[in-house]
């Protein structure tokens, strides 16, 4: 028993060192990246570029399911974005409320014939509507099939070579689309670009725009501001340099349509369609030896509301982790496979061992410590020191994210907001982190149960994916 605990202890220590060394690498890599990105963001002469016809036309894909309360304001805000050539395709995914009626009334919709082939199979379309008031708007009304199915229907209907998937409840900054196209203007071989998603809770919103960014006073949404900063500003920036980024947020990401069509669009069976589509894009492009990049750009910003109640947050995190687990299982063939370059050798292994299995290791650590205490074979001082170092490291990473925010974009101008950011970055490790571990741990159980009833799940078809929206913020 002693030997077993000793070996497990050593294993966890090695895991801790390896994982945190990797985070340190990400942290260091984020420095030159944020330097370059802020330089480009500051120096781009957007007005001049907007006046040229160089910008590629973009289609905004907006799946909407029971969004009656917000859909008109959201779509109006999207239609007034600063961009020369774009269209907005709203997909009413068989809403049971009056989402479609509200759209029809607000934008003077009229039924139009379908003028495109159904390249990706979707649930049947009921009708297509164009607007007499807003020429950029197309509304697709279809039978319910989930978010991925709606996105596929919108891809089919889109006319332009680039598409941006946007949640109907996401607020996009007016120049975000313009900024998102910067890598294209820099002549890079772009397959997809991710922008930053920030927390809108407690912010002042006027006419679908965030006019005053605030850090919430309440703990749960406040701590998520730090989480989002950490995930976007240092996690993904670091991954930019490593080239193995596996997540582009489903709430705000730009994709080349021809590549999405080549992989058959979004998978309707996937729990987290955004991660799934990025991994499949990597796989497709690497298999076919197509040169590409999938950078993350920090200055295009979309704002989203995060759960303020533990119950909803728990459900969201459980689902995200379940999605991560199933994606890692689904694409296990890429793990340590040199055929997939950095994605196979760094990205997939990190997300498998550093993210997917992390809650198991952490809980194992807690269990061993408790058992060790009970048997009197764990040195109390050592154990406490270890916990202190682990928490200290977590705080260091969170505060580093706050530093990056402060030296670059400074969205939270007030001293009070900065103080709250630092406070939440400090408190995150005491209770909140353990709760997220528990929520993520429950995902293992759900996945296990689902595997027992897999046949039944597949028969459910589109309904299984219904209502599964959201965006990931993992490292």
């Amino acid at each position, binding site marked *: 028993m002693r030997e077993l605990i000793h070996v497990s202890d050593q294993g966890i220590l090695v895991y801790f060192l390896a994982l945190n060394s990797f985070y340190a690498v990400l942290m260091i890599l984020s420095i030159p990246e944020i330097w370059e990105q802020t330089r480009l963001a500051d120096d781009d002469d957007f007005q001049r570029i907007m006046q040229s016809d160089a910008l590629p036309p973009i289609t905004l894909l907006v799946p909407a399911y029971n969004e009656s309360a917000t859909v008109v304001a959201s779509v109006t805000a999207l239609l007034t974005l600063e961009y020369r050539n774009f269209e907005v395709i709203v997909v009413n995914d068989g809403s049971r409320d009056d989402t479609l009626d509200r759209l029809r009334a607000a934008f003077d919709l009229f039924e139009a014939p379908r003028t495109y082939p159904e390249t990706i199979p979707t649930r049947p379309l009921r009708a297509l509507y164009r607007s007499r008031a807003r020429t950029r708007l197309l509304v697709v009304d279809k039978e319910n099939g989930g978010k991925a199915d709606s996105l596929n229907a919108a891809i089919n209907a889109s006319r332009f070579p680039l598409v941006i998937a946007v949640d109907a409840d996401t607020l996009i900054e007016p120049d975000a689309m313009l900024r998102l196209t910067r890598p294209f203007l820099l002549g*890079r071989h772009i397959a997809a670009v991710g922008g930053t998603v920030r927390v809108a809770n407690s912010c002042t919103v006027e006419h679908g725009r965030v006019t005053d960014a605030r850090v919430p006073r309440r703990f749960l949404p406040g701590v998520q501001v730090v989480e989002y900063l950490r995930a976007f500003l240092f996690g993904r920036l670091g991954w930019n340099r490593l080239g193995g980024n596996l997540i582009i947020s489903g709430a705000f990401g730009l994709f080349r349509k021809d590549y999405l069509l080549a992989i058959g669009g979004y998978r309707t069976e996937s729990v987290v369609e955004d991660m799934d589509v990025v991994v499949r894009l990597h796989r497709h492009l690497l298999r076919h030896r197509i040169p590409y990049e999938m950078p993350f750009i920090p200055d295009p910003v979309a704002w989203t509301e995060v759960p303020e109640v533990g119950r909803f947050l728990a459900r969201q995190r459980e689902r995200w982790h379940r999605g991560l687990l199933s994606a890692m299982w689904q694409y296990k063939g890429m793990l340590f496979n040199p055929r997939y370059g950095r994605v196979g050798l760094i990205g997939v292994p990190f997300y498998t061992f550093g993210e997917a299995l992390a809650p198991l290791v952490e809980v194992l650590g807690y269990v061993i410590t408790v058992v060790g205490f009970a048997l009197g074979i764990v040195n109390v001082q050592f154990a406490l020191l270890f916990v202190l170092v682990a928490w200290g490291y977590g705080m260091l990473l969170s505060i580093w994210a706050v530093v990056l925010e402060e030296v670059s974009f400074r969205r939270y101008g007030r001293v009070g907001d900065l103080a709250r950011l630092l406070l939440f970055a400090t408190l995150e490790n005491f209770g909140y982190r353990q709760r997220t571990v528990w929520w993520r741990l429950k995902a293992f159980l759900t996945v296990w149960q689902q595997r027992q009833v897999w046949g039944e799940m597949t028969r459910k078809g589109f309904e299984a994916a219904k209502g599964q929206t959201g965006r990931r913020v993992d490292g």
Partner: protein
Amino acid sequence: MTGRHFLTVVALVQGVLLAALIVLIILNRWFRLRRRAQVHPRVIQLNDAMQRWALGTADVASVLLRLARLPVPLAIDALVMWSARVPGDRWRKLATALRYHWWARLVRANSDSARWWQRLQTARFLAVAATPEDTPRVLRLLRDPHPAVHIAAVATLERVESAALTTVALERLPRLAATVSAYYAGMLRRSRPLVVQLLLKMLRRTDDPALPRLVEFAARLNEPALRERLTALTGHPDPEVRVQAARAIGSFPHTDSIAALTRLAADPAWPVRAQAVRSLGMIADPATLPLVRDALHDPEWWVRLRAGLALTRFGAPGRKLLLEAEVGGAAGPRDMARLVLGLSTQALAEYAA
């Protein structure tokens, strides 16, 4: 060193780092606030001086003085902003004055810097303040490996007419990514006569892999002087060149164009046929009406769509043919005619774009 010692050292280092980061955040805020307090009044002074100079109530020296008092990036931002507001002749006077100013000399000297962001500053500065003497420097920036730098440098074409600059930009255009290429094209269109002369030579290089992009650019110019050369390219073996040539000659209602498009309407590659039919619709010569009607029977959906849309451009005769197809026996033309006849005017205009 035992494990406990190691962890103690790590914890201490963490503590020091955490304290350092918090100090860094506080210092960063303080420094920015202080800098802003210093710089903001100077920006206002510069804007005021610029406004008075633009109205002719102040001399250029007052502008130069205030520009020199600003940090370089802010001064360049101000120049870029004001360059769009001040008339060309007057702006050239400021550009000439800046040529000999110590501050501008320092910015120019950065064109050879090893740091890309300094070269970018120079390129942005020269884009609004270059004089003909800066041509060699802009040429170097146009060949810069960093895309942000050469994209900023190509904007110089808006203000400086130079055969050398135009040639380098045009040579580079087809090898750039599509978006950057489109941006270059927008800039090059401002030097039209020179560009047309160069294009006439470049379009003769029929084995050039960049030819499709050059033809695409030529098509955007709608330049009659290029018509003959573009029509000759409709017989090129590369289908992409034929597509672009078909698009280009659709702007020229000439018998040669119609003859070439008639030939291309039977091309083995469907994108060529689709574009040829579309261009025939743009010219809308009644003699080609039967040809466009026949394209409604094409096995490819996109060619049928283009044919249906093209028929709407022939006016009443085209519409009549669509109505006939709508009640005809063939499923393909019937479905397409039904679809096109159901399109709103706005949708038709969007398709035409």
